[in-house]
């Protein structure tokens, strides 16, 4: 167990990444009760946006200078696609039975994946992503990669900014009102259409930051990366209590930690040697999800809400 601090760090970093993507699921669900399964692809498109920015910049540009441009480009791509999806795929179906937008979301997810596959140059295989030069950063009991520093700073900053935005600004409060009761909010003079677009845009911006963090951490991106990441982020959102933005982050961290712990230690438990290791980590992550949902169906931070009539 000497590597426990290191494994905790691995799990928390992975979890922070899940959490950043999960925000988008949770906010959209909180406001329009839609599970936006295309969100994973919006994350993936952010990654390709960032890569495009890096490729457009003159070769040899320091990554420190390129990074802000890459983040902006990633956000621009993700937000644009998310807003387009809201306008053309989801808005026409508002008021339709809930199954309809869900199916649209799945279709959109495949369409976006295939669009990158078909039209982005060389995207049929994994594309290398720029990485920071230099070795690991030693923090005593554990070390982290240079690229992980970005995630380490971005995740809490994003969370705090979002918290302040939702509780302190006019738009944020309008968002809360819309999520509680869209019809009454409309009667109070809130432009709910605008609020919904804002929720999509904020979720997409967070996904774009996660995509840059993903690229810096793993050194490559590919057109399918949104699928698994999106599924895990959705799990994180449900785990934390879907609709709750802090829950999304907590759910992500719990999920990331569970995966790291399962990989590292389950095989050491007597009789479990066949059920441990990297290949089984997803199984344990979903066992955890089922357990949480059995004991606390609303998720870790979710509130028990009566079904809307």
């Amino acid at each position, binding site marked *: 167990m*000497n590597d426990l601090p290191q*494994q905790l760090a691995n799990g928390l970093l*992975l979890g922070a990444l899940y959490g950043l993507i999960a925000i988008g699921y949770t906010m959209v669900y909180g406001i329009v009760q839609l599970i936006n399964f295309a969100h994973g692809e919006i994350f993936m498109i952010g990654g390709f946006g960032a890569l495009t920015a890096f490729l457009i910049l003159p070769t040899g540009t320091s990554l420190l200078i390129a990074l802000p441009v890459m983040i902006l480009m990633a956000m621009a791509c993700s937000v644009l696609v998310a807003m387009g999806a809201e306008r053309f795929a989801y808005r026409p179906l508002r008021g339709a039975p809930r199954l309809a937008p869900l199916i649209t979301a799945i279709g959109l997810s495949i369409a976006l994946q295939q669009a990158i*596959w078909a039209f982005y140059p060389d995207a049929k295989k994994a594309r*290398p992503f720029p990485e920071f030069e230099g070795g690991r950063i030693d923090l005593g009991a554990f070390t982290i990669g240079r690229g992980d520093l970005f995630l380490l700073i971005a995740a809490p900053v994003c969370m705090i900014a979002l918290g302040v935005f939702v509780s302190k600004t006019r738009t944020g409060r309008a968002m809360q009102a819309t999520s509680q009761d869209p019809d009454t909010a409309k009667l109070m003079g809130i432009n709910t259409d605008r609020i919904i677009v804002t929720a999509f845009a904020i979720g997409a911006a967070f996904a774009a930051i996660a995509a840059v963090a993903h690229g810096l951490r793993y050194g490559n991106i590919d057109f399918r990366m949104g699928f698994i990441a999106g599924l895990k982020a959705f799990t994180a959102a449900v785990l934390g209590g879907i609709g709750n933005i802090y829950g999304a982050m907590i759910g992500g961290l719990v999920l990331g930690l569970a995966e790291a712990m399962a990989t*590292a230690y389950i095989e050491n438990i007597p009789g479990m040697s066949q059920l441990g*290791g*990297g290949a089984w980590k*997803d199984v344990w992550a979903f066992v955890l999800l089922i357990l949480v949902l059995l004991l606390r169906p609303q998720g870790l931070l979710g509130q028990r809400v009566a079904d809307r009539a």
Partner: protein
Amino acid sequence: MRHRSLFIITTAVTAGALTLSACGSRGDSDGGSSGGGDTTTVVIGLDAPLSGDLSALGQGIKNSADLAVKTANKNKEVPGVTFKLEALDDVAQAATGQQNATKLVGDSKVMGVVGPLNSDVGQSMQKVFDTAKLVQVSPANTNPALTQGKDWQTGKKERGFKTYFRTSTTDAVQGPFAAQYMYNKKKLKKVYVIDDKKTYGAGLAATFAGEFKKLGGTVVGTDHINPDDKDFSAVASKVAEAKADFVYYGGEYPAGAPLASQIKNAGAKIPTVGGDALFSAEYIKLAKKNAEGDIASSVGAPLETLDTAKKFIADYETAGYKDAYEAYGGYSYDSTWAIIQAVKAVVEKNDGKLPDSKDAREQITAAMQDVTFDGVSGSVGFDEFGDTTNKQLSLYEVKNGKHVAVEVGQFEG
């Protein structure tokens, strides 16, 4: 009203389906291989991952087969026969490969199939081709069970499918070859073995570990990863903790490169060693500087050193393909050429004509057993299991961003 619209829809759908199936049967029935005209067209099918993570290898296979077909047509290798390549994409998925196999079997002009890349895909196709008596030559499947049956390790070898041949050697020699090099030449005694639980990866890792232990080495840890994963940090930290001298990875480069990279990032400055599926320029592109010192084995001698290969390399360049021929280009050319030679033998025996399509397939399969020629990868021929008689192997180390051959030889058991 409701009933009426339902009736109309049903009628439309039925009519549509009938039209489509009529098209299908028309396409099937015109397979005139006996040939009224001067030349008969023989289609050589090809199945490889032409898109997806492994597409670099797949495109190399496709282009090399294409080159073989073009060469045969240009030289009039088989008088009266024009060859045509039909390439299908299996995205490295066993299920897709099986569908492709069914599709190729259904086309009566197809007289042989080159491919696939992955052993698990090969496994899923064998039965389909065997039932149709259609010969298949894989340039890249290395799992021993494909030719020698699932009990090959116990010495009870049994050939399951008479239609299956391959031009690459197997993991039964590839894994141990790397084990001997690491233990005897590199003097490294402690290994951490990781695989992706797939037919190829798990089989390769097992043959490696078996030989390494026999030589006196220690396996300090084992783990399995999911090849679709991106995050291997937890496994990498375990490897660093285990103080292994090197890692052996049984699997392919899309997961292997990030795994090797994350292991080095976790603080274990040790090489990752693997099989032919790590021997790709893509591996270095993905792992970047962390690829330095990593080792991959590959079947056959390095193409650049063989005289037979020089013409192939030159021709490949002249043809101007967009992608490199990669690890299996030479084998793919040879696999295609083997089918062409088998067709040639059958046509010569049958007075310069191809027999009726059903007989033709069966005779070509039978002729394959005796095909021998000097190919790109050395002398090509097949033993009683359908395995290549050429047991050359090489090891490549990544030096300054390039795979450099460090060991070439034959495996001595």
